[in-house]
């Protein structure tokens, strides 16, 4: 029997699992300060990563760059090119209460560009090629009864779509925003989120793309004093999906939760990167990404960066990635990076584990009368439910549960 999913802390350096590569372990242990009480020398700090609005600053990725080394960049030329959106490559629909949608933001028109500066080639071409950014504002103190929905529906595989959305949650508002991706396209999507003081905002980015869609995205948020921000990435469809969910703070007492759920089947590449920049004291962050893999060449990547800056006293942060491998031939890369520049923190932990649902698990469940297909469903549903139940929009929870089961059934055949 191979390793099981565990909930223990940091398993970095643990023996790797047969049939698995866990790249980046050496790198990780070089950066992690296991004692968590004094500074570490960091070789290439996340803080030094290039960000720019100028396309010329980002060369075409070759796959050798640290941030692209897991991604199948060779097939992504169309997404890296400095090209405009082809006409009606994707239909955009916004469902929001009256007055929430403001007039579009041109390049350089604040608040556009105040939180999100492109951090890679895909984000910079999306930014440069979006002249009119969707601007949605949840007014201060508002508590809309229904989630705001932003629907991106791709018109066809290979059609180039660029997007930049700016989302503001006014002070003390309480809201949920769902960004939903369906259909197919080559979609570069930026999301810039400003969470006002005391606001509670949940952003759910759902990737229900068709099989031949490709999607690269950068989602950056800045979270105000005492505000609570939750970002949930749910990636089920698409041939290549790569989402960066980044967060930093603009006031103390803020909380950020970056969650993710993915299910990769044969040939799919689903990559999630998260970056929590603890740039302000007394903030909390929690990162949890869970993924299932099934089928030949299913590939998932999670890279979780947490930077606790010198001034971020009293920080409490934790990050975890768990993968569940259902068949042979899959690959799950999981790389937590924790950089800590002050010892005066509440806590900083990380964990990563990749477990296999194997014949022994199956035998145990079947020996209790549970048919094979039910057993598989039970395990996957149970595993992913920890994220699904965080969505707290019942209709969406149900829909995603059904989608996950569809993935399972599709793979059984």
């Amino acid at each position, binding site marked *: 029997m191979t390793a099981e999913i*565990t909930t223990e802390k940091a398993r970095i350096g643990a023996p790797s699992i047969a049939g698995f590569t866990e790249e980046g372990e050496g790198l990780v242990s070089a950066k992690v300060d296991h004692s968590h009480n004094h500074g570490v020398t960091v070789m290439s700090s996340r803080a030094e990563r290039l960000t720019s609005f100028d396309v010329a600053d980002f060369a075409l990725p070759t796959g050798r760059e640290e941030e692209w080394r897991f991604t199948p960049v060779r097939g992504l030329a169309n997404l890296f090119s400095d090209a405009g959106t082809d006409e009606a490559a994707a239909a955009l629909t916004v469902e929001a209460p009256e007055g929430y949608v403001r007039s579009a933001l041109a390049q350089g028109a604040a608040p556009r560009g105040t939180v999100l500066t492109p951090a890679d080639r895909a984000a910079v071409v999306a930014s440069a090629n979006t002249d009119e950014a969707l601007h949605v504002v949840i007014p201060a103190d508002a508590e809309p009864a229904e989630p705001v929905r932003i629907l991106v529906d791709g018109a066809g595989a290979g059609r180039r779509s660029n997007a930049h959305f700016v989302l503001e949650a006014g002070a003390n508002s309480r809201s949920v925003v769902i960004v939903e991706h369906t259909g197919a396209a080559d979609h570069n999507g930026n999301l810039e989120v400003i969470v006002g003081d005391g606001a509670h905002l949940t952003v759910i980015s759902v990737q229900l793309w068709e099989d031949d869609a490709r999607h690269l995205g950068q989602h950056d948020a800045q979270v105000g004093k005492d505000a609570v921000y939750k970002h949930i990435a749910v990636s089920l469809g698409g041939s290549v999906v790569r989402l960066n969910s980044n967060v930093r703070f603009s006031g103390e007492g803020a909380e950020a939760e970056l969650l993710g759920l993915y299910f990769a089947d044969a040939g799919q590449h689903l990559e999630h990167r998260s970056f929590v920049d603890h740039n302000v004291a007394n903030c909390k962050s929690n990162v949890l990404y869970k993924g299932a893999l099934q089928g030949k060449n299913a590939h998932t990547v999670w890279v979780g960066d947490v930077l606790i800056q010198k001034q971020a006293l009293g920080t409490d942060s934790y990050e975890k990635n768990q993968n569940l491998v259902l068949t042979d031939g899959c690959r799950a890369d999981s790389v937590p990076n924790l950089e800590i520049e002050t010892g005066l923190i509440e806590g900083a932990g990380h964990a990563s584990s990749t477990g296999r649902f194997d*014949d022994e698990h199956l*035998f145990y469940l079947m020996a*209790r*009368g549970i*048919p094979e297909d039910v057993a598989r469903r*039970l395990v996957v549903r149970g595993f992913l439910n920890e994220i699904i139940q965080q969505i707290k929009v019942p209709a969406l929870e149900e829909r995603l549960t059904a989608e996950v089961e569809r993935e399972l059934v599709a793979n059984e055949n």
Partner: protein
Amino acid sequence: MSTLEIKDLHVSIDTEQGTKEILKGVSLTIRTGETHAIMGPNGSGKSTLASTIAGHPRYNVTGGTITLDGEDVLAMSVDERARAGVFLAMQYPVEVPGVTMTNFLRTAKTAIDGEAPKLRTWTKDVKDAMQQLRIDADFAQRNVNEGFSGGEKKRVEILQLELFKPKFAVLDETDSGLDVDALKVVSEGVNRAHATGNMGTLLITHYTRILRYIKPDFVHVFVNGQVVEEGGPELADRLEEEGYDRYAGAAGTATAAAAVQA
């Protein structure tokens, strides 16, 4: 009344060195209401017999039959056997990621009964059974066997035995690794299940200690893939004193490890 009948069972496994025959003609008949103890040295094939009854894919049946009231058990899939009333309490229960005990127990009960249990009585049944087996209530929310201690895993096996109400229970060294109190608690669980009068038990053990709590009707001595002697409870006491040495000749290569087992 039901009968589980094992006739001249031959089982082999595929190893890197080739096929290895482990069971070399085992015959046993168990009726509901009866308790059969199987004792034998390490590696003699006891777990192989247990796993073969449950249908573990690693074991290849090369000869013989297993029937439950005449039905061919060997033709059934693993889950069908469980639904037909065969239960295996495993020597090493498996940790299952991502599935809570609550969810697992309910799903299994539903599968075995062919319908979902009534929620209110079921919740109470589970709670009561856990209490009787001194299993902490918070285990319900933990993943199946995940991080459970050896003794806790064994209790949870017996919890399932009590909740699923099988016709035949195969207990593979359920007593190993239990402290004195746990042994008593677990034995009481088995006896409660037995007291319904609708269960037959095949109890694999190395120790006579458990046989003080669970009284066997028959004791079978298992050596080198065969039953070499059968008798009543008194046979167990003799084994404890004399070990398996005297069967060494009878069954070829059997090891005399009984005295040193941990």
